[in-house]
């Protein structure tokens, strides 16, 4: 009997082993992909100093403005993407702005009037930042989407007796990029200023390899160069930029600021809006500044040091309840800000 029991047990064990052998193989865990960029722990940063601006008084509650066009009762099956504020083409304010806000302006037009993206593209025309300010001051346009006014533009407005209302509607950031091969993950503000003033000249001084730093700049009077001077250098003179001889339109050779070349020794700068999603930038890496990595959240909440904004600017004399003010309120509403994000920008900071 015992023998029989032992045989049965062994047989059962043998069968169990066979079944286990025929079952699923050991699960292979896929290797975790290496993160494209390592993000340092995001500490809340101190509020950096910003250029003096006088933002408009914000409405106490950012409710979407009520449109006179909206029926008194909302249909229950109102589609989620139906804007609560709507304008006809004829009502739509005259708009102008900078080059980089064109897609935003088109998105606003498309959403508010129900026009297609192609129709919006035909309608919207921006004449660049300075011309937009001039048009606003001269009452040739109603609302502009631009960077903050320069001293010259402020003076122009003052001379014309026009007071400008400058309202941030999009967050933006000034970012620094290096080659993905560069070991350095982040720099402090002091190190950035040191590099671009020429005080720091080797990557080993900031935790990298023993390689001279090639700190690329942008052309004089360009938007990026202005941003660098205003947001970063804070009055510290910049060292001479790497240059290259190029043939200008008239055929002569001129010294031009060399463009960033993404070599391992290079550092450059640009705006987050472009760098975030541009083809080819996957071979670059953004640097954290003072331990804060630039992403949509840190740009929007201002914890990334070099944050700035794009603004809607109107004449302060614009009457309360006007279409322009209603449009501005809508832009600042959750609906408007969601559209800002959907269009590829970063929503305005709180």
């Amino acid at each position, binding site marked *: 009997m015992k023998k029989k029991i032992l045989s049965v047990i062994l*047989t059962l064990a043998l069968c169990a082993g066979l079944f286990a052998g025929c079952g699923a193989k050991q699960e292979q865990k896929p290797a975790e992909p290496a993160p494209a960029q390592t993000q340092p722990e995001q500490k809340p940063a101190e509020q950096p100093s910003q250029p003096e601006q006088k933002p408009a008084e914000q409405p106490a509650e950012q409710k979407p403005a009520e449109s006179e066009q909206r029926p008194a009762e909302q249909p229950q099956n109102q589609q989620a993407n139906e804007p609560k504020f709507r304008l006809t083409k004829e009502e739509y304010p005259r708009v102008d702005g900078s080059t980089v806000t064109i897609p935003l302006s088109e998105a606003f037009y498309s959403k508010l009037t129900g026009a297609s993206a192609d129709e919006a593209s035909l309608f919207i025309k921006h004449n660049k930042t300075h011309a937009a300010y001039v048009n606003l001051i001269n009452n040739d346009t109603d609302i502009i989407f631009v960077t903050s006014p320069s001293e010259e533009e402020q003076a122009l407005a003052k001379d014309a007796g026009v007071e400008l209302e400058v309202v941030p509607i999009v967050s933006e950031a000034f970012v620094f990029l290096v080659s993905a091969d560069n070991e350095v993950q982040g720099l402090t503000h002091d190190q950035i200023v040191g590099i671009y003033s020429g005080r720091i000249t080797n990557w080993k001084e900031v935790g990298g390899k023993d390689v001279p730093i090639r700190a690329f700049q942008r052309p004089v009077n360009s938007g990026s160069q202005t941003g660098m001077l205003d947001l970063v250098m804070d009055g510290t003179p910049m060292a001479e930029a790497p240059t290259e001889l190029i043939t200008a339109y008239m055929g002569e050779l001129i010294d*031009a600021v060399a463009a960033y070349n993404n070599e391992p020794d290079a550092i450059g700068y*640009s705006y987050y809006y472009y760098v975030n999603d541009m083809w080819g930038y996957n071979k670059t890496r953004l640097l954290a500044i003072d331990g804060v990595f630039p992403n949509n959240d840190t740009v929007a909440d201002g914890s990334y040091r070099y944050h700035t904004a794009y603004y809607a600017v109107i004449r302060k004399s614009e009457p309360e309840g006007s279409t322009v003010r209603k449009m501005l309120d809508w832009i600042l509403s959750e609906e408007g800000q969601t559209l800002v994000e959907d269009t590829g920008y970063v929503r305005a900071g709180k």
Partner: protein
Amino acid sequence: MKKTIRLISLALVLALLAACGDSPAVPQNTPQQPQQTEQPPAQQGTEPAQAQQGTEPAQTQQGAEPVKTEPEPPAPAYEPQPVFRDGILNGTVIDEHSENDEAYAAQYDTYKNCFWVTISGLKEESVENAINGDIMGMYNKANRWEIPPFRGTAQVDPKDYEGGSKYFNINDCFNINDYLSLQGSYTIYQRDGDYPYLSYCDFFTATYDLRTGKKLALRDLFAEGYPYEDIINKRVMEYLDSENAQEEFIQGDDEPYYEDSYKETFVKLVAPFKGIREDQRYYLTNYGLCVVLDYNDKAIDISGFYITPVTVQISYGDFYDGLLLGRGSDPSIYTDASKQCRYLMYSLGGEEVREVKKLYEGPYNIDFEEQLTYPEQLPEELLKQVRVKLAANRQQLQPYIRACEEAEDPEDKYFYGSNSCYVEGVGNYYIANFYTDTPPLTDGAEYTNTYSNMIWDLDLEPVAAGDMFQSGFDWQSYLAEKFRTSFEEQLSYGYSCDHEPDFRALAADPRISISNDSIGFRSSGRVKMYNYQYGYDTDFEPYCYIYFHDDDAMLLNIL
């Protein structure tokens, strides 16, 4: 019993081992076959689809030594094609047509001109008719003279363009290896206003496979799996960077021209460029693939007083062995293939590298500059030889620079000179063209310039004039006779010469030039001639060109 137990135990152990171990037939962590594009020499811009990975050693039995296997060579992601260096001119006949609207011109005191082509010579009439129908479609659409849908054009009053100049052209025609590629444009000008008149332009593009009549999308030009988008996107980004397209410049006024105006351009990025579209417009030329950026590219904005699509030209060499264009021609699709002849392409690609330097850095206005331009794919050995020659030419300029410094009142004068070299690939040849230019040192004297070149074949062997002709052919006598012909032509144009040149000596070591459809020979020596109509001396270099469609082309051995 004991035996039974032992057998069962052994079977149990074996079963347990089978459950815990891996199958010896399948190594652990075996990656998929990596896909890697074949890298041409010195080509940059193409990334392998995946980095090559080695295989982990297979495990047979637990505790046994791993068997190391050599990594298998990567399978190409695409089937390599013949590099597109030359082709056969199609047997189609391109007829040109033009039309000037005299009534419009008289009414508005302006111009309205149209120029287009039609094709004939295909056996398959349906294909021929379809292509000509498309061309007439372009013509008809252009003749509506509508403002093309660029940004902001809803705010443009079409009436401003009534009565303005209008032009329609078929501008480019690539007619090689049974492909036909056309690019046309129409332009409308504002009727009134200050110079420069505002104008709008739009393109038409179409590329056909003459064997099938199919209109080709961009992807149809490349072997399946070839990463052409990456190559094109890289070149587009380089173009946008060169245009400072991300930047808006601070301007003091509304005019686009101001100091340092080279920086402000009319092509702007309004959003991140994310890559070309599948339906991106393009056309082919003898120099390369031209990608069109226009109002369909929402990341781009084109502004200024001439609103037009822009093109980014990419050398065929950039695509190396990924292009399908190098297939040759099928003469059976033509009614008359007798006029078909060889056609050479500009074949070296990669980024064009330009090295410039100033040869004088002193206090005077002595502007001597040196430029070396070569394609990135140029073999390093040839680049070395080019630099040696360029340095030798530079040395010859030094006495001129010193003479400028020592001239009377140099601070009041301006001297210009140059030392340059431009390297290109045409067909199966590399050609370096050298040029020096030295200023006159005395009043009334002329600039003097020298030309020379160096040519190599694909094996990097230097090529001389004799190598261009069939073996045993008396090419020197042939060239001497051709040089005499060109000299006599010059005499007929009002020049005189006080002696009979030694044409055979002039033909001994001619300078060679190679282009798409011809080989040129120019004497390295010069003949002093005098223009008696206008009264000036000149140096004449006798020359001759052998076109590939000429009967004399059979004397060449390079075709």
